[in-house]
């Protein structure tokens, strides 16, 4: 498997690393395509009719989960998917550990175009520190030595193996998809200051600095190791990004500071009270006329019950306990409660920009929003990203 990581912090891989990473990606494809297909057939043909006889109408994700939970096919799918997830971190950690010193030489860029500002007073929220999110041993904030960046390297490499190439070159597709959506949809909008909340390694922050090269782009996260890595990573790509250690629910920025505030796959990892606090902060730091946008999992009210059950698997089994609660929310209401006008609410599904190319993308985003089984889902057949947002009056 050829790596899609092209920047200088790419871990030097030997043949064994390549072979094992390829195996784990193939295993995930098998589980998500073949085994999940079998599970759906089994559900439709056997589990659902049987459950209905017992009085379970299978009308909600929870009811479907309850009906399937005791079935062999669900157990096999879930057990194999858990293994595949654990193996992602196994194979990646092996090479990051081995190559740590090599990476360390590149982790402190000499003449940075961007910056890194750490703040040791930032308290790591329990939603990060108490849970090994995504089954990643140690989660993403842990530091195993002074100025450690290992969890950043693990995250970068893990999402490549996890996504079997579906996140695009340098895992940048969500960032490219959204930044180009804004560029093409609002050609007169020229953001000068852009903020990425919960940016981790900046894989979706960098694309904004590339799409809007005149803008000053900032990424914030609570975890120092991912910011150190993200800073070195962006510098190695020659892209200026300002990384700051900061809690998105309690930002240190002045009111009316940014033209765009966005996040990518961030909200679903937060408890509801933190989502609400972040959105209020986002409203505060946005300039009037500024744009908020969240790339996220699609809301449950837009998807069929079975797809909701399928997407919500991670809530129960992938250490993402807030995922289901987030998807149950009325996203419009989340934004209006934070101060945005109800009439300002927008949502969209988008094909992957770096996969379909500029012309096809432009055409797709002019059409109606399409919600289908690939929306928000990591699937070998492709995916459609979902996002929602609002302008600040």
């Amino acid at each position, binding site marked *: 498997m050829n790596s899609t990581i092209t920047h200088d912090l790419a871990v030097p891989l030997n*043949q064994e690393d390549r*072979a094992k990473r390829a*195996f*784990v990606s193939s295993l995930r494809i098998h589980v998500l395509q073949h085994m999940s297909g079998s599970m759906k057939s089994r559900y439709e043909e056997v589990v659902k009719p049987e459950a209905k006889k017992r009085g379970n109408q299978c009308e909600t994700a929870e009811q479907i989960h309850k009906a399937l939970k005791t079935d062999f096919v669900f157990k096999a799918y879930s*057990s194999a998917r858990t293994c595949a997830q*654990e193996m992602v971190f196994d194979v990646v950690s092996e090479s*990051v*550990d081995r190559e*740590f010193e090599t990476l360390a030489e590149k982790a402190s860029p000499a003449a940075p175009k961007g910056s890194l500002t750490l703040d040791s007073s930032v308290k790591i929220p329990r939603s990060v520190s108490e849970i*090994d999110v995504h089954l990643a041993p140690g989660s993403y904030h842990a530091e195993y030595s002074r100025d450690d960046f290992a969890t950043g390297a693990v995250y970068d490499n893990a999402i490549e193996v996890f996504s079997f190439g579906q996140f695009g070159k340098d895992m940048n597709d969500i960032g490219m998809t959204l930044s180009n959506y804004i560029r093409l949809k609002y050609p007169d909008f020229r953001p000068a200051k852009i903020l990425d909340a919960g940016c981790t390694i900046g894989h979706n922050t960098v694309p904004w600095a590339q799409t809007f090269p005149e803008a000053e782009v900032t990424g914030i996260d609570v975890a120092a190791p991912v910011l150190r890595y993200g800073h070195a990573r962006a510098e190695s790509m020659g892209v200026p990004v300002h990384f700051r250690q900061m809690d998105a629910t309690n930002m240190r920025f002045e009111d009316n500071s940014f033209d765009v505030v966005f996040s990518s796959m961030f909200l679903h990892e937060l408890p509801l009270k933190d989502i609400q606090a972040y959105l209020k902060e986002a409203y505060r730091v946005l300039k009037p006329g500024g744009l908020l946008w969240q790339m996220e999992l699609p809301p449950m009210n837009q998807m069929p019950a079975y797809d909701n059950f399928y997407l919500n698997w991670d809530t129960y089994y992938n250490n993402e306990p807030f995922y289901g609660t987030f998807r149950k929310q009325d996203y419009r209401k989340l934004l209006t409660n934070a101060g945005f006008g109800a009439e300002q609410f927008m949502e969209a599904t988008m094909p992957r920009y770096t996969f379909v190319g500029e012309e096809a993308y432009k055409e797709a985003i002019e059409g109606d929003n399409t919600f289908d089984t690939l929306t928000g889902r990591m699937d070998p057949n492709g995916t459609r990203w979902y996002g929602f947002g609002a302008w600040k009056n």
Partner: protein
Amino acid sequence: MRRIPRKRRGERNRFFQAEGVDEMLSCMLRLTAEVSALKDRLYIAEKVLEQQGLTMSSAIEAYQFSEAEESELAAGRQRMIETILAQLDASPDVEDMTDENSKINEAA
């Protein structure tokens, strides 16, 4: 050197009621990853040798084992089976056999 932990905190997911089934699947998939990596390496070895003019694939298929080589491979297979199935060999019979083997080894 291992710096990054390999085992996550908290209870591991368990889906099958019978004890050990989830763990067994985990062992099996990790083993399959090792086998897959070895297979890839052998493939590369064949390609490298082919680049140097040695047509490995057909030579491998045409290869005839000597009796000594057959025995060597059989012993290797046996060792591998014993290693892989070691956790299943917890019956008293097997323990007895192990004791017998120890005695034989001590005598030797």
